[in-house]
């Protein structure tokens, strides 16, 4: 190699970041060229000087301090899952009662307690049956969704339960509407 290698290549050479054939070329050149060898030595010294600046002493309790500020992954996932189930169940029950009340009125049963209760129980049972069916089919999808939501809970606080409630209400509404249609057809 008669030509001087580019300074950029000498810089990469001392970092051993050149392709092997090029690295050998530069190495052979440095053996015979004083100017480039000085350049390489100067860059190497610079690297050593940058690296030798004293490092910081790490406080003994550094790791403990970090660990105190983080929560185990499980500890927030389980309550989040439990909270989601409780929210969903409560919403379904409320939705079921409301739809049941609506049905009892449509059947002309007035607002007497017996009719409301019968309709409510019928509706709740239908809702639960539908829910179990849907849950079985979509279990794999739902479980991964809940996992993801549970992770966000730590960062988003109360926002996620609110979203869960909203979702459950919407689901309950649509289930209720379809059941209402079904009952109406049966009565007709």
């Amino acid at each position, binding site marked *: 190699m008669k030509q001087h290698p580019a300074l950029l290549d000498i810089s990469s050479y001392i970092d051993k970041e050149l392709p092997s054939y090029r690295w050998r070329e530069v190495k052979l050149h440095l053996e015979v060229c004083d100017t480039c060898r000085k350049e390489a030595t100067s860059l190497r010294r610079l690297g050593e000087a940058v690296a030798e600046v004293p490092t910081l002493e790490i406080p003994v309790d550094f790791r403990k301090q970090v660990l105190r500020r983080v929560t*185990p992954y499980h500890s927030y996932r389980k309550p989040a899952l439990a909270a989601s189930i409780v929210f969903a169940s409560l919403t379904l029950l409320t939705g079921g009662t409301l739809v049941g009340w609506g049905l009892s009125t449509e059947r002309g049963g007035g607002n007497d307690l017996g009719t409301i209760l019968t309709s409510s129980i019928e509706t709740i049972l239908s809702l639960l049956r539908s829910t179990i069916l849907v849950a079985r089919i979509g279990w794999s999808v739902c479980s991964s969704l809940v996992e993801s939501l549970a992770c966000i809970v730590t960062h988003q606080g109360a926002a996620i339960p609110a979203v869960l409630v909203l979702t459950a209400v919407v689901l309950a509404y649509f289930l209720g509407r379809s059941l209402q249609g079904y009952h109406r057809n049966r009565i007709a």
Partner: protein
Amino acid sequence: MVEQRVAGDSDQKLVTRILKGEKDAFEMIMERYQRPIINFTYRMTHDREIALDLAQEVFIKAYNSLNSYNSGYKLSTWLYKIASNHVIDYLRKKEPRWVSIDTSAEEDGRPMDLPAIQENQVDSLVFSEKLEKIQTAIKRLPLSYRRLITLRHVNECSYEEIAAICSLPLGTVKNRIFRAREMLRAELDGIL
């Protein structure tokens, strides 16, 4: 026995255990990487307290994002990426406003009111004159260059790792490291 098992676990195994709820496994990850991360934050900020605070925040950020960690990357690269972004964000926010010394001194005839050096900024470590000059020269580098030169020489990262950490093309890393060295050499002329 448990300690031995933890010490022998690979980074990936430790990550899996943390995600299963074993918070303490994270201590082993910190033990492995606290020194390079703290060295990095310290070299970037040149302030002991700030460097330690930033390093803590880096580990907390890393812990909270572990479920998004892609095992296709080395954990060290991923941690450096978090550290690098965090420190750069901090330094950009803290960038001092430039004040002309001449204007200030001439306007009211009084010496410029420079902020006093706080006690925590005075490190207990005593630097030799040479080391001080090197440190000052590194500090004067533009942030993007300082980050690369620190990762290369302090953390001994390869160009490829630096490219992954800083989300830069390999050629840019190579060029910037070269330019940073040229700047440092110009600053440290006659010292090395």
